[in-house]
């Protein structure tokens, strides 16, 4: 018992004050890209060709955050002259097209559905379904339950049964072998229900785009309400998206 108390004192209170107080991530973190509109078109083309995800449109000078894995190649290859990644983790979006960014995103809070805020603003129970996720999206969702983020203080919980849930939070590129289980889980959730696509995989197939063994686009199966980009999304990115969309 003494040891429990001693450890308790050493640990102290570690819960983050976010969103009441801003929080900053280390400068190497790659969040919302800043795109230099007037950069040399040849440089943009070079980056587009080198991008492993083919996520860059060099003509429009836009990046598809639904495909981007934030690998940093374009930033490095252009020496920051075409793309520079900021530490801004606020990247959730309500529409797929909005993820094609020129460095800006529409304000998520203003784009969320009013009735969702009314229905789920005080209590949101989600069933997480990993459909061939690589366990990073899953892990960085799970950490929202650790004391630092302490998700349940916002009335948001991940629950064990779809019957207890208000919606599904899907990670992974949806393998052929998980499609049926995903749809069954979705059907088991009582309506009205929300669908959240988390991570590049569930939005576009992520690193596995083009594989014939995955569906690669959650929206082709279920009507997605909220997109959370990243590979994996930083826990704060998920937290920001959930709070702004539902609260």
């Amino acid at each position, binding site marked *: 018992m003494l040891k429990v108390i001693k450890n308790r004192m050493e640990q102290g209170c570690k819960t983050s004050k976010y969103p009441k107080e801003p929080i900053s991530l280390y400068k190497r973190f790659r969040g919302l890209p800043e795109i230099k509109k007037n950069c040399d078109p040849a440089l943009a083309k070079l980056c587009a060709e080198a991008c492993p995800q083919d996520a860059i449109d060099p003509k429009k000078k836009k990046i598809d955050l639904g495909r981007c894995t934030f690998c940093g190649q374009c930033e490095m290859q252009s020496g920051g002259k075409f793309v520079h990644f900021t530490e801004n983790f606020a990247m959730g979006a309500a529409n797929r097209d909005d993820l094609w960014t020129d460095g800006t995103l529409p304000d998520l809070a203003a784009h969320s559905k009013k009735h969702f805020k009314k229905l789920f603003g005080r209590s949101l129970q989600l069933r997480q379904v990993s459909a061939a996720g690589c366990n990073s999206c899953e892990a960085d969702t799970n950490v929202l339950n650790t004391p630092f983020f302490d998700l349940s203080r916002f009335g948001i919980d991940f629950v064990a049964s779809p019957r207890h849930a208000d919606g599904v939070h899907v990670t992974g590129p949806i393998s052929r072998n998980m499609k049926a289980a995903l749809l069954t889980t979705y059907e088991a959730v009582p309506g009205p229900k929300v669908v959240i696509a988390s991570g590049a995989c569930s939005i576009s197939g992520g*690193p596995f785009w083009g594989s014939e063994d995955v569906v690669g686009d959650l929206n082709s199966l279920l009507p997605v309400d909220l997109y959370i980009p990243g590979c994996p999304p930083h826990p704060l990115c998920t937290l920001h998206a959930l709070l702004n969309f539902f609260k």
Partner: protein
Amino acid sequence: MDNLLKIENGKPIARTDIPNLPLEGFSQTLVDLAENDGFVVQMFAYEDGKDTKLLAVMRQKRDLFVTGCSVNKEFDSLTSANEKFHMFEREIAEQYGIRPLNHPWLKMVRYHANCTGAQDVFGNNYKEEIPGNYPYFQVEGEDIHEVAVGPVHAGIIEPGHFRFQCIGEVVLHLEIQLGYQHRGVEKMLPKVPKKRLPIICETIAGDTTIGHNLCCCQAIEGLAGLEVDEEARVVRTIALELERMANHVGDLGALSGDVAFNPPANYFGRLRGDVLNLSQVLCGSRMGRGLVRPGGVAYVLKDEQRQLLRDKIAEIKPEIEHVCDLLFTANTVLARFEDTGKVPLERAEKLGLVGYAGRASGVGYDARDSFPTECYATLPVNRNTMTNGDVCSRATVRREEIMHSFSLIETLLDRKGDTEAVFMKDYKLSPSSFVVTLNEGWRGEVSHCILTDATGGILRYKVKDPSFHNWTGLAMALRNEEISEFPLCNKSFNLSYCGFDL
């Protein structure tokens, strides 16, 4: 030993140098080796022009061997002579439609059609949903009941299906049927532009980002003749050790949660985050994404990052020590950990268990020691002492390895050199070659093989996650345990679904 060619970790050889034995000679050689302390690192089929070939990479103490043969539609299974081949032969059957005759446990691995268009060995029609006609092991009798769990589980975890054959509360047999996570990784890797290789390999198993991507990049370095300087190796080694620590710390917390001892569960949960944040200091990603690239690292360690790492380690090391002490001295915890989920040494060796699961049973293998890459040849090795093969031993190995990783990282932070950041380029790979790479990922031996064709294109890319060996270990650990011990046993192994399913 002309039947076996001695090779080195990460050093390519010409494909023509791989022995091409008659089928019987191939089988005999492998079984002999397996019975003399030999273990399977890789065994797979590939198409070589009109021929289909089998290739095996075996390890024996500190030596690595390769051998091969041509094969038709079937071959006599080696598994009946030696269990170590069991999963590999099932995989060959599924991927290439080649039947291992008299295999005692011939079941699908990941549920997908084979790549040759041959008749399906399992008689499956893949238009039907997984698991097709999967023959679950059944126990008969009046008091027997069956518990089926998954694919979707109760937490935020990956999918898989477990079937327990029980008498009362006691599990007679646990069958683990996977495949839900299959993304077609090995099918993709040879076809996609090379710029995608590190991105895909980083996500074969996201918790082993560095482990798998190191294997990929070292293989490309071998085949493209790239040199990696000392400082880049330092950064890579630190990254691999941070990955090990983060996962071990997280799992100790989860184990604590599974025995309902909440303080360490919460503290470790938060401390794991601190370790992940160190990876973020290193390369901007908590999972180590984007760090390792052929030829070196994409993010260099400057004084600032070195200092941040040092400071944070000085802060969390005593905290982790204290929480470990809290966990491992609580009688209620030990009462649950000790003698639970035992895998005796003999069984662990027979199955070829790797990583901490193997070491906890007394299998002394650590790839960092036997086949050192990066900085490991110059670093001390961890020798674990508790080898009872139970949950307690698996937890204790992890505790020791966390502390060992701390000291490795501290040593490496003091080695100061210079390196240039590198990014991915379209490298030319040496034609008609073969390379195998091995690294001790946090779960155990990770290994990749690349075979190139006459133009330097990738003919076959083979991936093996340690989970491929160890899932069978978990099934064995559950025998004659109470079904309520499953979560605890499962966490003590913490195997990868996607790493297995590929």
